[in-house]
Each structure stands twice: as structure tokens, then as C-alpha cells.
């Protein structure tokens, strides 16, 4: 998630007074107001609106929404000058195939503005750019480089330049190994035989995307007036939109700023940036049907204009910096925002259907109520557990458990899926040794078998408790469910039970689980001082019978 911050003073000067009504408007525009602190306004920008990731972009859209500057905003593009071109060498195809470029002239920069530009760049990198994988942006002071530019891929040891924040030349590989930014993004070039670079007319390296710019030619400062901008990546549409977002945000900083196009010479050359609006049809019927409104064409037009569009006949002209309009529904949502979510009248439709609970849930609830009638308390444990609880404390060696289902890179010690409820209940007892006894608890829940199948289980434990007491509980349950559950002497049984005090629980010919007294060795592992008797059964068989 990305947020943007801007001074409240600036907002009040250029947009309007920040009163309660205005605060509400900001959120109802789809940019939740996060905070107003120390003279700064912070709003959240949803990932579908990278065009709002700068104050300039936000201002453009929000002024329209307020009805102050509605419709499609137009920018003048200047034709490429002499040498305003970037030659794309075919060597980049296998590394980072695309680039689009522009030149901006007439910037008047100060610390604030430089910060704004860098923040926009970083935010685009982290959102649309997926941490520079999909998109990397470079901005260079034009006076320090000589046009035209070449975009090509070179072998890493043939790349030599002084990267940002360094005072000596490094090779491509050295940068990935030794430069902090280089190391951070090294994975994006790992395994590539050649690394991409931008070179100027004098063969000076401007940058090695998506890693880093040159200290000599790639650093914008207060004296910079004109800049060369490039976006590189894998999807030319993403690059074009991103470039449009940047150049329009820069152009909005002052009326004297000029955007120059550049020729990008692929086999088939293109000219960028291109601010020609996309077009998409919108139908009044679809809009009204989806929103449950009765808007006229005129109203729809007005609302589209409030969202920065232009409507001609049934065609909507979409700003070239909008990345989120995939379908007519995206336009319809914008109409809904312009209409105001607060103005929709909620209504429950007259659709007659029969409600139905999942029968398993009905049975599970009945079982829980049977246990509550026995004064037992239901517990609810996580489905994720730790190898220590699942195995070590149950007297099993975790290293010998091949079938446990592990989740990757868990941020906590809970990194396997539980295989039974038994260890969860014993854990509950061990965490409640200071609470009044007797403790009678049960749980109904899912466990995960090694074949990845999930099954519902029921487990109950009584502490202090013996075989007779827990068997009484099972017997009562079996009577209440009207199922012939019976016990059989068990030869193979889970090792946490006491031999001779454990039985196999059966229904028809199926084994449902085991019942017995827990071995003191296991009780000791859990630091339990009281004896415990327990059973765990599979509910799948019972569901089959009862459903």
C-alpha cells in the first residue's frame, strides 16, 4: 500500500479549505484520508491508481472531482528535436527488452520538488514496478549528457562507471556484489549473461537499469533545468503509462515546463511519450443497471467529467495516464464515485431463496451442545502448530516425521499444519495448570492428513480423569447421536496412551480413533501434574451416517 503526503498549506492554497466536509470528500473520492498531522496531509492511494502517487497527480484528479477543473486535462507535447532519440540495440531483448523516453525542459527545482520527484519515482517502482522488476525509471540532468542515447546490453565486466554514492569506477558485477543498492536488486539481473545500460553519445554510462544511475550523469540537483527520463522493463504498455504519469506530474509543477517527445528506435521506431487518450464505449443502460440508478446521458457525462474523462457520443476519452480502465465497469465505478457513495440508497432486493446451513455445521453444533450439557468447555485452537508441540512434546522425533505439511517462510514458529487435535488439547491443559480443576475441554475442528486431505475431528479430554470417565463421555455422545460406537482392544495405538488403557473406537467396521489414558511421560513433557484421559475421533464417518 502506498500513501502520499503533502503540506496542508499547499492543499489549502491550491485546492481548498480543509474543513470536515473537505476531509469527507477526500475519502469519498477513493483516497482515504489517513491523517492530518504537523501541517501534513496523508492520503492512501489504492494500487489501481498510480497516477495519484504524486501531489500533482492527486491535485489534477481531485480538482476535477470537486467540480473545479473538470474534463480531460490536455498537455502540449513538443516534437523531438535534433538527436532526441534513443537507439535500442537488439542485445537488450533477452535482458530487459523495452524502454520509453522523454525530455522535460524548464524545471525550477528546489529541495521540496526534488523530493517529490524522487518519491513519485520510488512509489512507482514499488507499486506498478513490483520493486523495479517490471519498471525502473531513470531521470538524468540533460546538461551532463550528450544526445543521442543508446540502450544496449553489455557483458558485466565491460560495464564500467561510478555508481551513485560512490567515488570510484566499478564494473557491473562489482556493483551487484558491493554496492548496497546493487546487492538489494542483484536478483533482478542474476543469471543474465549481459546487463542493460544506457549510454550517451560519448559512450558514457548513464545507468545500469534496474539497478543504479551513474554518479556523474544520473543525479538531479537544484541547478538542473532539463532532464532526460527513461522507463525500462518488460511490458511496453506499463512503461508508456508510467512515463505519462511522470511527465504530466512534472509538467504540472509549473506552466513554463515543456514536455519533449523522443524517438525510440526499435526495428519499428516509436515516439514517446504519447498522451493520446484511450477510447472506450459506455452504455447508459449498463451503467444504470449495474448501479441501480436512473441517470440521464447528460448526468453521466457530467460525472465522467468530474472524474477527468471526456464523453463524445458514447465514447469515453480516457486520460493516457490512467492504468486501471480495463473494462466498462471501471468507468461505471468512477461514475458511482462521482455520484457519491453516500448518495446511494441501500435496498434489499426481492429475491426469494431458501436459506440452508451446511449440514456438517448443524451436526458440529449439536455435538458441541451435547458436550456443553456435560459441563465441558469448548476450546478453539489454530490450524497451524509447531513441530515442538505436534511431535516433540508428544514423544515423537520431529526429524523422523516425513509427512508433516510445512508452510513456507512462516513469520512465526507456527509452521506446520496440525495433524490431530490431541496435542492442541494437551497444550491447552498445560497452559491452564493454575486454573481450577477438574478441567474438561473439547474441540471440533479440521486437521490435515499427510495426503493433503482435510478432515473434521472431535477430541475431548478430562483432567484429572481416568478411562472410565472418558468412556462415559464417549458413550453418552454415541447415544445422543444414535450411533453404535463401540470399543475394541487396540494393538497398534498412538504412543501417548498407556498400554492396556487404550482402545480403538469403531463405528461399523471403520476405526474412528482412539480413547485412553495419557502416559505420564507425555504428561511430564507438557508439565502436567494431573492425570488425563482423552479421545479423538474422525467425524467424517459420522457425517456420512447423519447427512
Amino acid at each position, binding site marked *: 500500500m502506498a500513501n502520499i503526503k503533502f503540506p496542508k498549506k499547499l492543499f489549502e492554497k491550491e485546492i481548498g479549505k480543509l474543513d470536515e466536509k473537505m476531509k469527507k470528500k477526500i475519502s*469519498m473520492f*477513493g483516497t482515504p484520508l489517513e491523517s492530518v498531522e504537523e501541517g501534513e496531509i496523508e492520503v492512501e492511494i*489504492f494500487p489501481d*491508481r498510480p497516477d495519484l502517487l504524486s501531489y500533482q497527480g492527486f491535485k489534477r484528479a481531485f480538482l476535477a472531482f470537486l467540480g473545479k477543473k473538470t474534463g480531460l486535462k490536455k498537455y502540449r507535447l513538443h516534437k523531438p528535436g535534433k538527436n532526441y532519440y534513443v537507439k535500442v540495440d537488439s542485445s537488450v531483448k533477452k535482458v530487459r527488452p523495452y524502454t520509453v523516453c522523454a525530455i522535460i525542459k524548464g524545471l525550477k527545482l528546489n529541495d521540496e520538488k526534488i523530493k517529490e520527484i524522487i518519491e513519485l519515482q520510488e512509489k512507482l517502482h514499488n507499486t506498478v514496478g513490483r520493486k523495479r522488476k*517490471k519498471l525502473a525509471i531513470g531521470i538524468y540532468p540533460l546538461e551532463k549528457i550528450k544526445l543521442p542515447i543508446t540502450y544496449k546490453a553489455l557483458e558485466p565486466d565491460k560495464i564500467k562507471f561510478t555508481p551513485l554514492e560512490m567515488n570510484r569506477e566499478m564494473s557491473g558485477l562489482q556493483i551487484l556484489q558491493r554496492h548496497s543498492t546493487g546487492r538489494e536488486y542483484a536478483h533482478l539481473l542474476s543469471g543474465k549473461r549481459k546487463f542493460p545500460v544506457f549510454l550517451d553519445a560519448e559512450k558514457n554510462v548513464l545507468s545500469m537499469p534496474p539497478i543504479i544511475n551513474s554518479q556523474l550523469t544520473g543525479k538531479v540537483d537544484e541547478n538542473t533545468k532539463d532532464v532526460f527520463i527513461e522507463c525500462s522493463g518488460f511490458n511496453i*504498455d506499463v512503461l508508456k503509462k508510467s512515463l505519462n504519469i511522470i511527465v504530466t506530474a512534472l509538467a504540472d509543477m509549473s506552466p513554463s515546463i515543456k514536455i519533449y517527445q523522443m524517438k525510440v528506435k526499435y526495428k519499428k521506431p516509436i515516439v514517446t511519450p504519447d498522451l493520446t487518450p484511450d477510447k472506450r464505449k459506455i452504455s447508459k443502460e449498463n451503467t444504470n*443497471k*449495474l*448501479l*441501480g440508478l436512473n441517470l440521464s446521458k447528460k448526468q453521466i457525462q457530467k460525472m465522467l467529467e468530474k472524474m477527468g474523462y471526456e464523453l463524445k457520443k458514447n465514447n469515453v476519452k480516457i486520460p493516457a495516464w490512467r492504468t486501471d480502465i*480495463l*473494462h466498462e*465497469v471501471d468507468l461505471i*465505478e468512477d461514475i*458511482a*464515485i462521482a455520484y457519491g457513495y*453516500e448518495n*446511494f440508497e*441501500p*435496498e*434489499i*432486493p426481492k*429475491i426469494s*431463496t*431458501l*436459506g*440452508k*446451513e*451446511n449440514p*456438517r*455445521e448443524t451436526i458440529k453444533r449439536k455435538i*458441541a*451442545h451435547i458436550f*456443553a*450439557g456435560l*459441563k465441558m*468447555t*469448548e*476450546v*478453539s485452537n*489454530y*490450524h*497451524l502448530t509447531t513441530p515442538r508441540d505436534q511431535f516433540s512434546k508428544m514423544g515423537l522425533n520431529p526429524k523422523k516425521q516425513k509427512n508433516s*505439511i*510445512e*508452510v*513456507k517462510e512462516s*513469520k*512465526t514458529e507456527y509452521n506446520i*499444519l496440525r495433524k490431530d487435535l490431541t496435542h492442541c488439547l494437551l497444550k*491447552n491443559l498445560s*497452559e*491452564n495448570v493454575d*486454573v*481450577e480443576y477438574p478441567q*474438561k475441554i473439547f474441540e471440533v475442528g*479440521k486437521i*490435515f492428513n499427510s495426503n*493433503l486431505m*482435510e478432515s473434521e475431528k472431535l477430541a475431548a479430554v478430562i483432567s484429572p480423569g481416568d478411562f472410565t470417565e472418558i468412556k462415559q463421555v464417549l458413550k453418552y455422545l454415541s447415544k445422543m447421536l444414535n450411533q453404535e460406537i463401540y470399543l475394541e482392544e487396540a494393538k497398534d495405538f498412538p504412543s501417548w496412551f498407556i498400554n492396556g488403557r487404550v482402545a480403538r473406537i469403531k463405528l461399523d467396521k471403520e476405526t474412528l480413533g482412539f480413547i485412553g489414558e495419557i502416559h505420564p511421560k507425555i504428561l511430564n513433557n507438557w508439565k502436567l501434574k494431573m492425570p488425563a484421559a482423552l479421545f479423538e475421533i474422525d467425524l467424517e464417518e459420522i457425517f456420512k451416517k447423519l447427512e
Partner: protein
Amino acid sequence: MVDTSKKENKVNKRLIESLSPNERKIIPLLKEKSIVSISKKSNLDKVSVLRSLEYLQNKDIVKLSSNKKKIVEIGINGALYKKKGLPERRLLNLLGKKRIIKLQDAKKQSGLSNNEFKASIGALKKKALIELKNGKIVFSGKKQDISKKSIEERFLESLPIEYEKLPPEYQLALKSLQNRKDIVCVLEKKSVNIKVTELGERVMNSTIDAGDMIESLTPEIVQNKKLWKGKKFRRYDVTSSVPEIVGGKRHFVNQSIDYARKIWTEMGFQEMNGTMLISSFWNFDALFTAQDHPVRELQDTFYIDKQIPLPADKDLIETVKKTHEKGISGSKGWNYEWEENDAKKLVLRTHTTCLSAQTLYKLSKLPEDKRKGKFFAIGKVFRNETVDWSHGFEFNQTEGIVVDDNVNFRHLLGYLQQFYKKMGFEKVRFVPAYFPYTEPSVEIHAYHPEKKVWLELGGAGMFRPEISVPLLGKNTPILAWGQGFDRIIMDYYKINDLRELYKNDLSQLRKIKAWMKN
């Protein structure tokens, strides 16, 4: 004139009939003023005496007040030393026989432990009774110093003693002994003061024998007329407190889930169910979440190192692929190369919306005019998160879809408003939001009347055609929502820490109130 004496007697009589046998036993002893002595003389244990005194207080017969006193008591080692003598005493006695003695010999002969020996040397040096010279102890005091009892010894003999009443010399002795292990300790003791009220005085002066009264009604008494006919029953204080009991019950989270389930079924929704382990295909791809979307990264989603086969329906896979790559039904798609292998990755479901996706696909097998309905789910979902008061890796979500040609955005808001109303939130508001699979999208905020804040409760929207067309087979409007549920539970039970929901603290589970919304 009113005959007050008679009235007073009447009150007394009622009162006297309400006295329990224990209370009767201690009433004549009320002037004892100490629980210990009442206990001795009444033959009742201290707890029973205290309880009876409390009952008498309820009846206005006594007034109890407690005060705390600091008492200096003898410690474990102190009791031992009181018998055997303090270590310095033992050393001093030794020096009484020989005025000069080697350190090692002194230690051996005194039978003191290392620490005791060191402590006693220190104590005696402080009093200028000994000097250490060339590894020898030299007695430098007067002979009578040996036979005289030290302040410490006299102090020990005086224990227990009230801290406030310590004479100044004993205060010093206390300080020096407190530095040594377990010789003395200062305890805070509560003592109860009993004051007999005016009514109490009258009760004490009247006959409290109310004759033969029935205490507990036993089966024997019930079955034998002679034992109860014409007898009086001892009056109980029906307002006095009783020990608490606890019943068995469902876990409070499950109680509230059952309630939500009831709301949905009452509104005509059918419950969906499915697995927690699911393919990325159902969890993400079928819901038009691009394969490079950040939510699919390891640091957000739990992946299992296994692949799971995609649905056998080749058309479905092809359509979803096309939807992502180039779009479908007027959509542009995400414009990238869709990888079948990414869709096969097994995850723990990150939302219950995957159940809605599967339900839509099941509906697609029905004739076109039957592909509609209202469905809901409530269940656990998983995110790879660290655990703190507001985050966890497992939480509950409630999900719903309404599939019908005639539903629209206002209906979505209608259902949500109704659900939250039933959950106790009268005032809700809807603000724009973003989710990859809905458009328009909305976030629900509910007003909390006590906290006077808006709570963010979750997201909803109408499924994009990129969902409905591939899964349902037609572009039907679908209302959809999936909200976290745990916050509402926390709010109802006034729990401020998410971890408490699944802590399984039995004393909490036994005490917690029932879910009473209806």
C-alpha cells in the same frame, strides 16, 4: 402511644430466627475482639468465624473494619539461631576459651558454614570485639562482653513485634539482621476489628435461642412429618452472595459464528463449504488476481511446497488464461504471460472468496436461467503475518454472493447494511475501495456508538466480468463481500487483543458471557 418495645421485639425475633448455628455460637463471644480467640472459644475454624462475622455484619449486628499492621517475625534461619545461638555468638563463645585463635581453626571448631563464618567475623569486628592479625582472630573486648546478650539476641527473643512499636535500638538490630538471609522478615498482617453495634448489644442481651429450628431441609425431615410439623425454619439471608459455579459452553467465537450463520440463513442464503488448502488457481487466478500481484508473494501468503492439479475442465483453464492475458468480454486483461505452474501452487486460503469462485463454477453447469442464488460462508482464512495485538496468521471471514440478473450496487449496500444492523451497528457508511476482483468496490465502516469512531469492517463489491464470464459462463451481476469477522467479536466481548480470541484461557472461557445478540 405506640408500643415500641413490642415492635423491637418483633424485629429481634425475625433476626434471631435468621441466625445460623455458627452465628449463634459466636454472638456471646463478640466481645473477644480477635478472631483467633473467638475461634478458640467457639471451636470453629478461623474461616468459619470470619464468614459468620460477615453475615452478622450484613445483619447489622457487628461492624467490621480491617487494618493492616507491619509485624516483624522471625525467619527460618532466625528460628534456628534462636535455638543454637547466632553464628557470632558461637564464635564469641569459642573466643571466650582462647583469646587468640587461627582463622581456619576457628572456622573448624565453631562448625559454622562459610557464609556464617564471614558474617559473624563482620558482626564482631563492627562491635570492635575482635581484630584480625596474621590470619588469626584476636579477642579485643572485655570479658563481660562475652557473657552479655547482644542487642540482636534480645531483639530476636522479642519477636514477633509490631513494626511501629520497635524501640530505636531494635530498629538498628532489625536493619543489620535484615541484611542476612532469612533471620527476620517484616510481614504485613491484616487484622479485623470487631465493633458490636447497638443492635448487636441488644441481641447479645436477649435470648438467642429460637428453639428447635430446621436448618437444611434433608430427605429425612421431608419424609418424617414429626420432624417438620409445627417447626420453624431458620430464616436465610436470601440476598447474601453465593460461591460461583460455571457451566459447559461453546467457545465464544463459535457462538458468534453461529449467530452470523443464522443471520445469513434467515435472509435466504445457502452455506458454502470447502477446503482450507487450495490451489492458487481458485484462490487467485480465478479471481483475476494477476500472477505478479504482491498479495501472491511468500511474505503475504502461506504456500505449501506441493503442486496440485488444476481443474480437469480444459475450457475453464483456457478461459481464465485468456482473461488474464488478453481479457474477455470487452476487458483488456492484465497483458502478461499467464503461467499454468503458478496456478498449481498450493496455498492456505487467504480469503473465503475462493469458495465463491468455486460456487460460481458449480452453477455454470446448470442451465443458464438456473445460474443464480444467494450463498454465504464463514470460515478461517490465513495470512503470513507476525502475531501481535491486532494481527494474526488465522482469522475468520464471512463471505457472501448474490447471483441474479436483477441485482445492482444498491442491493449490495442493502445486504451489508442489514447484516451489520443485525450485528448491532445501526449506522454504517460506504466508501470507495479497491480489490482486483470487484468493480465497483466498497469498504464498509460502521459507527461505534460508545467509542464514537468509525470501524473499518471490510470490503465488498460486484464481481468483475473477468470473474463472472469465465466462472459462471455469463455476465450476470454478482454481489460479493468478504469481511473479517474477528473484530466484531472482539468488540462485543470487549477484548482488545486479537490473541485473546484463541488463547484458550480456561478461566476466561468459563467466565465469558454468552453471545446474546438476536
